[in-house]
C-alpha cells in the first residue's frame, strides 16, 4: 500500500503536468465557492446592519402611534386620528409598572433659519424622558429640563446633521435660530445616530419642548393635548411583551374601546420588527446562497468530466501501476485525491476571491463585512465534499480497470 505522503506527491505531480487544465477544472469550484462566500457575507452584513440600525432607534422600545381608527364604519389611515394624548402618556408612566421611560412627542416640520442659512427639517416636541427612551444623548451643551419643558421655553437641541448644515464653521451653542417665526436659543447638539433601518437620517431633526412645539409649530393641528407618538421603554427585552400587553390594556380602558372593537392606536414593538426584518434577510441570504450552490455543483460536474478524460488518457499508466503491485485502493485513492485536491484548491481560491468581492461590495454599500471562520471552514468543507462526490465515480472506474486490457491500450 502507498503511504499518504507518497499518494499526495503522486497526485500533486499529476496535477502539475497540465497546470492550465487543472486551473480550468478548478475554475468551476472557484466560481461556485466565491459566489456562495460573497452572498453569505453580504447577507449577514445586511442582517447585521438591520439589527444595529433598528436598535439605534432605541432598544427595548415600544412606539405607540394613533391609528387604525374607524369613523362611522370607514377605516381611516393610521395616524390620521389624534387619539393619543399627553394624559395617556402620564397614565402609562403612572400605572404601568414596567415602563422605565415614557415620552410623548409631537412631530412637525418647519423651515429653520439661522444667520444667513436655512434648512427644512423635522421638528419634534418632546419631554426630557425622550432621550432616555431613545437611548440618545447630547454631544455638546445640554438638554432642556422639566421646568423648561413645562414653561414651554423657546429652546432647541439640534441633531448633528442640522447643526452641521446651519453652523458649518461655528459652535451652535447659545446661537439663535428662527422656527416658524419664533426665536429659539440653541442649548445643545445631539450625538450622531446615523441612518435608521428604514433609510432615514436620524440626525436631521430639531428637538424642542413638547408644549412649545404644540403651541407654536403644529399650532392648530388637532386638539391642544394630543401627541403624534408615545415612546415607552421597557427594562429589558424580556419585559417587552408584558409591557406591550399592559400598555394596550390601559389604553383600551382609557379610550373606552369595547371588547372586540378595533384599537384606535397601534403599538409597534421594535424588537419584533427587527426580528421580522432579520428573518427576511436571512431567507434572502439562504436563497442567494442556494442559487450560488448550483454553480458549485456545476463545478463538481466539471471535475468529474476532466477526471473521466484523465482516467481514459492514463489507462496505460493505471495498467502499469497495477502490474507493479498497485491494489485497487491505491488507484482509487490516487485518482480520488486528485479530484479532492482540485476541488479543495478551488475552494481556497474561491474563498479568497469571494472574500475580496464581499469586501469590495460591502465597502461600496457601507454594510458591515461579516466573514467568520465558520464561513471559511464551511466553504472548504463543501468543496472537499464536491471533490469526493464527483471524484468517486472516475476513481472507481480507474480502480476497476483490467490491467491486461489497460496495458494493451495504446
Amino acid at each position, binding site marked *: *500500500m*502507498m*503511504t499518504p505522503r*507518497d499518494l499526495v506527491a*503522486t497526485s500533486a*505531480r*499529476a496535477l502539475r*503536468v497540465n497546470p492550465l487544465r487543472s486551473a480550468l477544472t478548478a475554475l468551476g469550484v472557484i466560481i461556485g465557492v466565491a459566489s456562495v462566500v460573497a452572498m453569505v457575507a453580504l447577507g449577514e452584513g445586511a442582517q447585521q446592519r438591520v439589527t444595529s440600525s433598528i436598535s439605534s432607534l432605541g432598544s427595548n422600545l415600544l412606539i405607540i402611534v394613533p391609528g387604525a381608527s374607524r369613523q362611522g364604519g370607514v377605516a381611516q389611515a393610521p395616524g390620521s386620528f389624534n387619539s393619543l394624548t399627553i394624559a395617556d402618556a402620564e397614565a402609562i408612566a403612572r400605572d404601568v409598572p414596567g415602563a422605565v421611560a415614557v415620552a410623548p412627542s409631537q412631530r412637525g416640520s418647519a423651515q429653520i433659519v439661522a444667520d444667513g442659512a436655512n434648512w427644512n427639517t423635522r421638528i419634534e416636541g418632546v419631554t426630557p424622558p425622550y432621550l432616555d427612551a431613545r437611548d440618545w444623548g447630547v454631544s455638546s451643551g445640554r438638554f432642556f429640563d422639566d421646568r423648561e419643558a413645562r414653561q414651554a421655553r423657546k429652546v432647541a437641541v439640534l441633531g448633528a446633521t442640522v447643526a452641521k448644515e446651519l453652523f458649518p464653521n461655528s459652535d451652535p451653542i447659545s446661537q439663535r435660530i428662527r422656527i416658524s417665526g419664533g426665536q429659539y436659543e440653541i442649548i445643545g447638539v445631539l450625538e450622531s445616530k446615523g441612518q435608521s433601518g428604514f433609510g432615514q437620517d436620524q440626525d436631521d431633526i430639531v428637538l424642542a419642548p413638547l408644549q412649545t412645539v404644540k403651541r407654536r409649530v403644529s399650532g392648530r393641528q388637532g386638539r391642544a393635548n394630543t401627541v403624534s407618538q408615545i415612546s415607552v421603554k421597557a427594562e429589558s427585552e424580556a419585559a417587552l411583551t408584558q409591557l406591550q400587553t399592559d400598555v394596550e390594556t390601559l389604553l383600551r380602558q382609557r379610550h373606552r374601546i369595547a371588547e372586540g372593537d378595533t384599537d384606535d392606536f397601534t403599538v409597534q414593538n421594535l424588537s419584533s420588527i427587527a426580528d421580522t426584518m432579520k428573518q427576511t434577510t436571512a431567507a434572502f441570504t439562504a436563497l442567494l446562497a442556494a442559487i450560488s450552490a448550483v454553480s458549485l455543483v456545476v463545478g463538481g460536474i466539471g471535475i468529474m468530466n476532466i477526471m473521466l478524460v484523465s482516467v481514459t488518457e492514463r489507462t*496505460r*499508466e493505471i495498467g*502499469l*501501476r*497495477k*502490474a*507493479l*503491485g*498497485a*491494489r*485497487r485502493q*491505491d488507484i482509487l485513492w490516487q485518482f480520488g485525491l486528485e479530484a479532492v485536491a482540485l476541488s479543495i484548491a478551488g475552494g481556497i481560491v474561491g474563498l479568497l476571491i469571494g472574500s475580496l468581492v464581499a469586501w469590495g461590495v460591502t465597502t461600496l454599500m457601507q454594510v458591515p463585512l461579516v466573514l467568520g471562520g465558520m464561513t471559511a471552514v464551511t466553504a472548504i468543507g463543501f468543496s472537499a465534499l464536491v471533490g469526493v462526490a464527483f471524484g468517486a465515480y472516475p476513481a472507481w472506474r480507474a480502480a476497476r480497470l483490467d*490491467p*491486461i486490457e489497460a*496495458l494493451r491500450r495504446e
Partner: protein
Amino acid sequence: MGDEIVHALDKVSFSVPRGDYIAVIGPSGSGKSTLMNIIGGLDTPSAGTLVVNGADLGKLDDEGLAGFRNKTIGFVFQSFNLLPRLTAMQNVELPMLYSGTPPLERQARASQLLDRVGLGQRKTHRPTQLSGGQQQRVAIARALACEPAVILADEPTGALDTNTTKEILALFKELNREGVTIIIVTHEHEVAQATKRIIEMRDGCIVSDKPVS
C-alpha cells in the same frame, strides 16, 4: 462464436526451478501471452493451479494478487512502459511505493539498481531523454526493485535494434548468473537461443520443452 468456449491454454504443465532462464516461443495466438499473464498474476486460469514460491495463486484475492505482482514478479515490457513524467530514479522507485519501502531505503536501492544496469550517469534523466536500450535498462532495474522471484519479460527486445538487443540479452544473462530466475516470451530465435531452456507453444499447448544445446 458466442457459445463456443475458447481455451487459450489447455493442458499446459511445467515447472521452473529457481535460477532457471527460459524462453517461451510460438506464433501469435499460440497462448504465450495468456501464459505470461497467468504467471504474472494479471489473469487467473479458469481451471488448474499455479504455484509460485509456494503460494497457490488461485487462492489469492485481488489484494493478494497485487501483493504477488509487487513482490514476486518483475515485469519487463516490449514498449518499456516507463512513466514519462518521472525520472529514471522515480520510475525504478515506483514498485517500492506500493510495497511501503521507506523513502531513503527506496532511493538508495533505486540508485544501486541503476548503477547495476549501467545507467549510473543518467539517474535524473526522463525517459524521453534516454535511448530505447537505456529505457529498457531502466525498466529492468524497476523489475528488480522488490527483489522478485521471477522476472517476466514480454518481447523485451521487440522494439530494439540488433546491437541493443545483444546488450540487453547480456544483461539478462548476467542477472541470471547472479541467481535471478527469468522467463522471456519472444518470437525471435536468436533471443531464445540465448536462454537455457526453450518452451515452444502452439494453439494453447506446449509442443516442446527442451534445454538449449
